[in-house]
């Protein structure tokens, strides 16, 4: 294999196979498989709502959807409901599925498997309580935003903790024939422990567990406008996404004060004078989010261009529409990229390389900085072009960035396929 893949590829494949064979990771990957259709449907609904039906959407603006589409408001409500009911509950699905699959090999009874899932979902809610409603003695409400795709990491962690604990309990306690009493005991203990943990968190911390992860990731780089800060921000955003925090981490760039001042300057002065040419928005958002964070449009192209397998292609085909609209969640969950050692490397490296290139081009004044607002769902390759009012150098830069991303992803797609095949073969032989 080393001849076919090279030293690096060989070692990465070995690492990936070892990683996949770990029971915890296996349970997480099975959970991703289960959650994928839910994420795909929710993302498609969200994408259509944001890009076709909202006034800030690319298709809404360019195809003048508001002028010809009937019943737009009802359609918007319908899609909002659909995406909230699917994407909005993905963290709960993950917590349930991870704990379920973790316990499944040792629990013979379906009741035990389902019970652990229910405990994990309940535990996730205990850690996402609206602290003000709890502390003020009001009717308790939940932080529903944290139960969606941005809460996948927390969902996985709760699922793992509950699943492992339950598994340990089953292996050590549930040996007798009569199991109802024991199931009730172990479930009750877990619920009491998780509720106590949730309360302790709520009493001592002002933000949710999810918000804490996000703030930790952003803490070292508050609004960076220098190169190390921009690259660090790009890397940390990628790391968050790779860990399963799929919410909008970097998308505040377009609404920042600097972006507003850039737009004001362009609209009120002759020529293209931009007071803040180097910002997260002008360097990172515009040139490293083709297909969504991580330049996953490059990954999709590499899947079709390279030696990918049938499964990768099927996932790629299913994720085609959302990825073209810069919604990367289905591809992240479907392949998966999240927590994948092999695909994680290009996922982190590509935005950094692209940021470096766009920063260089902006510094050398080869391309002007983006100032016009960019509509949701604008094809990645067009973002620089439309954001600069039709500058062809920005279009060329976007083309080069896309090409670079395909080249970076290309070998990793092949290695991911080989790792999948080796892991599958090893699993078959072990049975």
């Amino acid at each position, binding site marked *: 294999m080393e001849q076919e893949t090279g030293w690096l590829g060989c070692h990465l494949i070995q690492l990936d196979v070892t990683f996949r064979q770990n029971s915890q990771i296996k349970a997480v990957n099975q959970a991703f498989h289960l959650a994928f259709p839910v994420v795909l449907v929710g993302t498609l609904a969200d994408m259509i709502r944001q890009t076709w039906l909202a006034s800030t959407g690319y298709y809404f603006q*360019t195809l003048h959807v508001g002028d010809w589409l009937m019943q737009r408001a009802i359609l918007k409500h319908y899609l909002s409901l659909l995406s909230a009911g699917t994407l909005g509950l993905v963290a709960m699905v993950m917590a349930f599925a991870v704990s379920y699959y973790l316990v499944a090999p040792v629990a013979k009874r379906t009741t035990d498997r389902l019970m652990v899932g229910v405990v994990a979902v309940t535990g996730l809610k205990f850690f996402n309580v609206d602290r003000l409603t709890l502390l003020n003695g009001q009717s308790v409400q939940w932080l529903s935003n944290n139960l969606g795709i941005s809460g996948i990491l927390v969902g996985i962690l709760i699922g793992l903790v509950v699943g492992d604990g339950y598994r340990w309990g089953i292996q050590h306690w549930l040996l007798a024939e009569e199991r109802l009493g024991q199931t009730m005991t172990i479930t009750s203990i877990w619920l009491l422990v998780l509720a106590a943990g949730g309360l302790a968190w709520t009493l001592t911390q002002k933000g949710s567990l999810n918000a804490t992860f996000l703030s930790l990731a952003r803490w070292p780089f508050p609004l960076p406008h220098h190169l190390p800060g921009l690259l660090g921000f790009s890397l940390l955003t990628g790391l968050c996404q790779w860990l399963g925090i799929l919410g909008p981490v970097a998308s505040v760039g377009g609404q920042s004060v600097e972006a507003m001042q850039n737009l004001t300057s362009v*609209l009120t002065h002759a020529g293209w004078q931009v007071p803040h040419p180097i910002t997260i928005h002008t360097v990172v958002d515009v040139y490293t989010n083709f297909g969504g964070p991580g330049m996953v449009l490059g990954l*999709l192209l590499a899947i*079709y*261009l390279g030696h990918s397998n049938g499964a990768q292609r099927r996932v790629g085909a299913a994720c085609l529409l959302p990825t073209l609209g810069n919604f990367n969640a289905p591809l992240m969950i479907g392949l998966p990229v999240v927590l994948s050692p092999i695909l994680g490397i290009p996922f982190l490296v590509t935005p950094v390389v692209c940021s470096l290139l766009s920063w260089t081009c902006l510094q050398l004044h080869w391309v002007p900085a983006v100032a*016009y607002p960019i509509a949701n769902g604008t*094809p990645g390759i*067009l973002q620089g072009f439309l954001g600069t009012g039709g500058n062809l150098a920005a279009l060329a830069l976007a083309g080069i960035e896309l090409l670079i991303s395909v080249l970076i992803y290309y070998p990793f797609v092949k290695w991911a396929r080989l790792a999948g095949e080796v892991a599958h073969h090893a699993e078959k032989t072990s049975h």
Partner: protein
Amino acid sequence: MLKKRVISFLVLVTAILLLSVPGFLWRPQQVTSVRATYRSAMAPVFLVPGSSATQNRFNELVTELNHETTTKHSLLRVEVMTNGQIQYTGSITRKDTQPIIVVGFQNHHDGYETIKKQAVWFNLAFRQLQKTYHFNHFSAMGHSNGGLVLTLFLEHSLPKETYAERLMTIGTPFNLEESNPDVDTPLFKELSADRKRLPRSLTVYSIAGSEGYAGDGIVPFDSVNRGKLIFQGNVRHFTQMTITGANANHADLPENQQIVALIRSDLLT
């Protein structure tokens, strides 16, 4: 196999190019579209006093508005002289996106002709301020005849690509001091004739003070009520309110606690 891969890849590239076509076709209209939806970070609130009052008329009100709030609004006072010169006192702090700008006039006498001149002077000040601070949307409050000055400005002089969001008139006599409902003053006729030129997206609050059952001591109810004949159906929302109790007479209205609360909730948020 290779052929299949190349075809799949080309299909994907074609899809990217096809989705880019609407963007290329829309590009020539982009500037118009951006300008139409662009809102500056700054959206000042203009306060215009009534006749006999100067640009210092609202000092107490602004202090009250800034009291017990985390968002402090800076205060710029502008006086437009009869020769068109503009004098400034106070300042707008750098990060204040909603400063309060009081526009007073050297000639602040009562009367139809003076009100029309004040509307022209207000326009001069507005354009000068817009040139300096680059705002393209704003809200406004006018006390008494100040509401007439603002209404005339909105009907006749609102610059292109400038968006009036909210207007609050307090004790504004749209039919001057005329209490006979059968008589239309020339000012009302003018405002009514041009009511279709009001910005459609405007939200208007008209507040009447009450001292007795006929008016606020100076302005008759019927004159304030004429506002609905001007605004209703021509702006997005029109709300009329009557304030009673302490400080509900014409001169005290800007310091009335209920009105201060209304300014805070409906004009400054």
